[in-house]
């Protein structure tokens, strides 16, 4: 299991356990993390599971695919460290990952 910390826009941090192979979005939904909507259920089709990857983790998480970039165009308040959490797969190297949820998703 890998630990993932979600910090909301007001600074409240919540840490959850995520199974390797699942996505960061799934970990959020399973644990009722507020601020992640995932309207489309993980199809990279709605941009409502948008997160900002903590600066220290940007490199480890990596860059979005071109399909994800396309979908990020629809996200609210996009920044250089924006990612869609349904496209970040949990693996051992991401144990301790910190992501920030935006003020709203749409």
């Amino acid at each position, binding site marked *: 299991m890998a630990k993932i910390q979600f910090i909301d826009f007001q600074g409240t941090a919540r840490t959850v356990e995520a199974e390797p192979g699942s996505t960061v979005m799934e970990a959020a939904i399973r644990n009722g993390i507020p601020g992640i909507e995932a309207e489309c*259920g993980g199809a990279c089709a709605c941009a409502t599971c948008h997160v900002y990857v903590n600066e220290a983790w940007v490199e480890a998480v990596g860059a979005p695919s071109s399909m994800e*970039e396309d979908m990020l165009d*629809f996200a*609210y*308040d996009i920044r250089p460290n924006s990612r869609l959490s349904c496209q970040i797969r949990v693996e051992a190297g991401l144990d301790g990952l910190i992501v920030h949820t935006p003020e709203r998703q749409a």
Partner: protein
Amino acid sequence: MTAPHSTDALIIGAGPVGLFAVFELGLLDIKAHVIDILPKIGGQCAELYPEKPIYDIPGFPSVTGQALIDNLKAQIEPFSPQFHLSEMVVSVQSLGTAEAPLFRVTTDADTVFETKTLIIAAGGGSFQPKKPPIPGIEAFEDTSVFYAVRRMEALRGRKILIVGGGDSALDWTLNLQPIAERVTLMHRRDEFRAAPHSVEQMRALAAAGDIDLRIGQVSGLKGEGGVLSAALCRDASGQDFEVECDAMLPFFGLTMKLGPIADWGLSVHENLIPVDTEKFETSTPGIFAIGDINSYPGKLKLILSGFHEGALAAQRVHRYVYPEKRLTFQYTTSSSSLQKKLGIV
């Protein structure tokens, strides 16, 4: 305004559940009209995941969103439902009684229906344009900021800033360029996910100096009394710049909002409509809610649950529409009268 459509059932939402309700009503000799805010049928299946396989539709080990909708469309064809697309219901007025309900329903295109029953199959609500996070944007909406182009003429001779990188942004850049004083297209990156042909045309216009292409994001708006004079923008390196404009069209895709449903006098709880589990009727007799938009103990937001809910709601609709008739339960496999309705015999 045209004469109202008089109907037995009006379905709001042309997603899988609304479409299948047409079938269940049709078997009971109830004709339906169907309204949807999107320009096409299919709801989330067609808008969010047309290519994505769904694995939990009974009888289909795997079916894509679009294929499911195409099949449902073929299945309900015998009942020739009338679709009213790109329209949103704005008001529902009760004209009848609890025993003999009648509703006057009006859309934003001024289409009026008089229907005995109303079936809300609106899923997550109506798809509406996403608004960009620009402080004070509300003050400019409908005068200088438009999320959709209803009438091109209203934009003739204006300095238009179009924001976004998809098909809507590109299509409107190409369509408005000939009639605008100036079109500026702004996108956060120098890559566009629109149809390659549109992107090519846009690049050619930019190269010829007929439009301005800027890479960046809008951070603020300048103007007074709802009249826009410029957009404050920032590029990827953090450099600020201004784009002079008197109209702005942001195209950031769609999101689902409950919308006017909240004002129809139904009880609504956390953006869902509570129903009973016998008839899937709301707190207002004659108004039903099926699919993702309803709630009841044990509710699962599955397409298959919505199909079941539509079948049961149709039974109750029948009693409102044909109060004198007794309904006998029949199977499509064996009933010649059902098969006749389906055009098989």
